[in-house]
């Protein structure tokens, strides 16, 4: 508890309220830039989706919706535990804080682990253009799909989920840092901005996934018999 001594108020702020409002605004503005970055790539994806609807649907139907769905539940739950840990900080319940933070990390790690499993399963299913891909399997479908356009869709899929995964990794790092801070007693009802703004970031990453899932996975028709790990 030694380091709890130094002032929460930074030297360049007049008062705590100004400091907190500033930090909140900073994170919201940062999230606005993130909307732009994901928005740009979503726009590119949408343009091609509108141009080649059948091929994109065919490709989407082959993505692993089972893992995608499980991951959605995992991520949504982690947003819940994140919100709870922010709340725990505000009310001073240290044990609840540690539990919820740890759960958030575990859920985040689960997401990433399942994502890795999913990429591996995509590899097994010949869904990696340039590496493991069978053009013939797409032209044989009824109706036949253009393997070039399927590759386009898959390229976007990897880039978009990859970008999301990178943001998750950064989030995980931030969460670990928060756990360390919590252990030092530096997350308290008066000193909570760090977890508050990181909570905002985590929720944002979750929301991006909520958009990714339908855009990528749900444009095609999946059959129960397709679901696999």
């Amino acid at each position: 508890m030694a380091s709890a001594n130094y002032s929460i108020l930074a030297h360049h702020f007049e008062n705590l309220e100004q400091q907190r409002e500033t930090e909140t605004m900073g994170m919201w503005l940062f999230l606005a830039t993130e909307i732009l970055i994901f928005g740009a790539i979503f726009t590119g994806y949408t343009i091609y989706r509108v141009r080649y609807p059948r091929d994109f649907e065919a490709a989407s139907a082959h993505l692993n919706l089972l893992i995608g769905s499980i991951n959605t539940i995992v991520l949504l739950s982690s947003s819940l535990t994140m919100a709870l840990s922010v709340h725990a900080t505000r009310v001073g319940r240290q044990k609840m804080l540690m539990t919820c933070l740890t759960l958030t990390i575990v859920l985040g790690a689960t997401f990433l682990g399942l994502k890795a499993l999913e990429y591996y399963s995509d590899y097994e299913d010949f869904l990696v253009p340039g590496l493991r891909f069978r053009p013939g399997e797409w032209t044989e479908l009824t109706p036949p799909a253009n393997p070039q356009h399927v590759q386009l869709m898959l390229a976007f899929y990897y880039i978009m989920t990859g970008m999301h995964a990178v943001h998750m990794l950064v989030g995980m790092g931030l969460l670990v840092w928060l756990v360390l801070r919590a252990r030092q007693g530096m997350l308290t009802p008066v000193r909570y901005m760090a977890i508050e703004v990181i909570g905002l970031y985590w929720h944002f990453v979750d929301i991006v996934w909520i958009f990714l899932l339908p855009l990528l996975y749900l444009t095609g028709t999946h059959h129960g018999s397709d679901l696999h790990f």
Partner: protein
Amino acid sequence: MFAEVPLFPEQASTTAERVDALFFFLCAVTGIMAVSIALLLLYFAVKYRRRAEDDRTPRILGNKRLEWFWTISPMFVFLIMFLWGASIYTSVAQPPPDAPEVFVIGKQWMWKIQHPDGQREINDLHIPVGRPVKLTLTSEDVIHDFFVPAFRTKIDVVPGRYVHTWFHPTKTGRFHLFCSQYCGTSHANMVGSVVVMERAEYAEWLDSHAEGSLALQGRKLFLKLQCITCHSANSQARAPVLEDLYGRTVNLRDGRTVVADNGYLRESILYPEAKVVQGWESIMPTFKGQVNEEELIRLLAFIKSLKPGRTPVRTEDFPPPLGAPETPPGGNPKPPQAVPTNRPEGKSNRS
């Protein structure tokens, strides 16, 4: 020496005259604006120069009326500039319908030009004076740009699609042709000339360079690549007849309608499953990798020229092209005189 320094390009096309007129108008308007501001600045800086360290100035904060005036009034001038510019641009975007079509292929680092009657050129384009000519351009690799300063037109040449431009030369002579979209090492060497000739001279030039029209060369390719196997004149053939197709509206299987233009034909040869005609199965194999851009242009010229009743008859026996079904579903097509028996499944009459 200085007499030879050009300060203004030659005007050699109808578009050039229009562009220059607009340009001079713009120079005049912006020149007046610039000179006025410069003079005002100079005048104020001199007239109101600081005379003592404790000079006082009147407290003028502004005048809303004046400020609204100088905000809104330029917009009227801009409107004229916009409309004038847009009118020239739209006319360049719409080639005259009966202009002869020359094909241009840009590739690193040369221009390959094909005239409709088969004449081929590299980096030079011979055209007659006093008549519009339309260019259809594509690229084999990266984006280039076909720029003729004397005509005041340029157009980016993009791989994977056709673009069009046109001009109406008004002067004979030899004019610079530049590539003006950076395309790599020898971008600056991808230059040539447009040679505008008198009609008689041009006719002579055409004769001496003829190789057989593009359409004729295309017909040979049509037979060699076995397109005729499916696209014969027989209405029971497994593919639509191509007579009189160019320029018509086609109904597609998925409900869309398209016009059968150069782009559509090129796409159907390279990516046949993209736009399947209503009433037909998607069994056409792709010819990507078997035809290059120049051969595509010949095929297109042939299809364009194909009048009713002129589909060639299959006479030679070549092996079917890569990817074509060995035996068509429903058996081989019967010769035209035979009574049709089995109608293959899934077919309906050609619309």
